[in-house]
């Protein structure tokens, strides 16, 4: 039971807004020691964990080319493109990307999207540009909100699309864990099939929220310009 104190460290650390690097390291050390691990064992776990999860950092190799293209005007071009297509609204762009992300993830093309590869260089600037065309210069809080929502479409689309694809990590984890622990022979296809209802609900909820963005923006902008509205 004592090992649960590590969780308390995490919760308290984030609540106090301490640096996450510090919080996580201290929580790891505390949990390890309370769990009866020796200092070397704790450090061994740290090292093994890092070595086994290097793939999450590989997107870094994409940053140089993104930076190169941004320097040559990528975001400006994304804006120009949007301003030429006058029927594209912020909500439309976000909903479109969301559906594209979910559908491509569902057929196994997870790597087509991503925060570094698509959201920063393309989706966020386009969504902002569509809002600028409609409302003029945006208050900072509003553009922050658009960007954060753009990031959320990528996450929701990827999470609730990928499990429909049979060869994805989550499905394989479920089948291998259940098969080895309980002696089943689950077909990945069966598991993937039961991911479809949730995927549809996610599509409805987040898709509706994406489309609703336009109305939410109108309201938010109105709040920021009370004096001009009064005139």
């Amino acid at each position, binding site marked *: 039971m004592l090992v649960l104190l590590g969780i308390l460290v995490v919760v308290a650390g984030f609540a106090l807004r301490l640096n996450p690097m510090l919080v996580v390291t201290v929580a790891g050390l505390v949990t390890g020691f309370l769990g009866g691990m020796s200092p070397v064992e704790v450090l061994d776990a740290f090292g093994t964990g890092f070595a086994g999860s290097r793939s999450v950092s590989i997107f870094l190799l994409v940053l140089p080319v*993104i930076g190169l293209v941004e320097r040559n005007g990528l975001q400006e071009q994304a804006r120009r*493109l949007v301003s030429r297509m006058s029927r594209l609204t912020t909500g439309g762009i976000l909903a479109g990307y969301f559906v594209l992300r979910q559908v491509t993830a569902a057929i196994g093309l997870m790597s087509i999207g991503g925060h570094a590869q698509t959201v920063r260089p393309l989706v966020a600037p386009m969504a902002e540009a569509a809002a600028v065309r409609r409302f003029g210069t945006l208050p900072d809080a509003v553009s922050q909100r658009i960007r954060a929502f753009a990031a959320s479409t990528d996450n929701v689309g990827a999470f609730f699309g990928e499990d429909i694809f049979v060869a994805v990590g989550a499905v394989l984890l479920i089948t291998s864990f259940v098969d080895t622990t309980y002696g089943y022979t689950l077909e990945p296809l*069966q598991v993937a099939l039961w991911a479809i209802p949730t995927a549809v609900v996610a599509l409805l909820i987040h898709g509706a929220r994406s489309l609703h963005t336009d109305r939410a923006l109108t309201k938010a902008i109105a709040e920021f310009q009370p004096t001009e509205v009064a005139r």
Partner: protein
Amino acid sequence: MIQVEWFYWLTGLFFVAVGVLVARDRTNPRRTSSGAFWALVGLCFPYSSFVVTGTAPAWVLGLGLVVIAAIAGTGRLARSGSAVAAGAAGDVDGLEADRGGEGAARAAAPLRAAGTAVLASREALAARFGNRLFVPVLIIPVVTALCATVGKDISVGGQPLLQSGNETVIGLAAAGIVAIPVGMWLFRQRTPALALTEGRRLTEDLGWALVLPQLLSVLGLVFATAGVGDAIGSTVSAVLPDGALLPAVVLYCVGMAVFTVIMGNAFAAFPVLTAAIGYPVLVQAMGGNPPAVFAIGMLSGYCGTLCTPMAANFNVVPVALLELKSNYAVIRAQIPTAVPLLVANVVLMYVLAF
């Protein structure tokens, strides 16, 4: 045969290069400790190869990681002032564009794209290159997807071309590398130094958020080794009322979400909650349909992933990438989706699995 380790070494080399550039950069208020941070992170990558093969002790890497976390956690990691840095670091082609009118332009530029280039010149570049600008960006998903799908089946001399099981990671890394010469050719850039400078700028912008996802999987491993999962599992099954289907379904789904919030990873929560409730109660005692129970249980965990800073690569890295002011901006945008979706999962499991 192309090994994934090559790309990890390259990533490490890139981090070390960033560390050297930062350490030499006088615009960085803490250049020694910041340079050491990036260089140490870089060295961890090749060293990990030996840890994976078991030829080097893992605790050395663990110790390095604690040092890295200490540097960042005590505020000794600082960002370099980029204007001078870009020029000094060999950014020749774009240098003229960097001079003058910077402050005003930066204020108007929504995302700090190409940090030092003025907005007007980037507008001009955008007009000149037009939609060609999208080519390098689109190369990335196309090459990655090709490697992940077709690449699997290509073999040279009986050996698979790409190390099996790592096709997507290799694809993404290779795509980032292939796109650089294409971009340089399209934009008549002669020096690859510019790509390095730009990569360094984005890396410094991301800061410790780049290392956090890996540190969190470390925490997950420590939690698992120290028995946190079992402690939670026994607590959860102790509070469960006997023989009631709906409370059991709610506890499994909500438990998956809550435990995922704590661990930052639904994959870590799944075995624990499934051993505590999912299998013994929902499948064995109540006769639930196994694939439906397990699939919807896992997806309930994903609702938790949307709500936690512990899922750093999804919820914290984009904060840095999109230059958001609040660490919780992305999570705040996701909660209104996550909560109703969790409720929907409970309903779906209750209706479909029994």
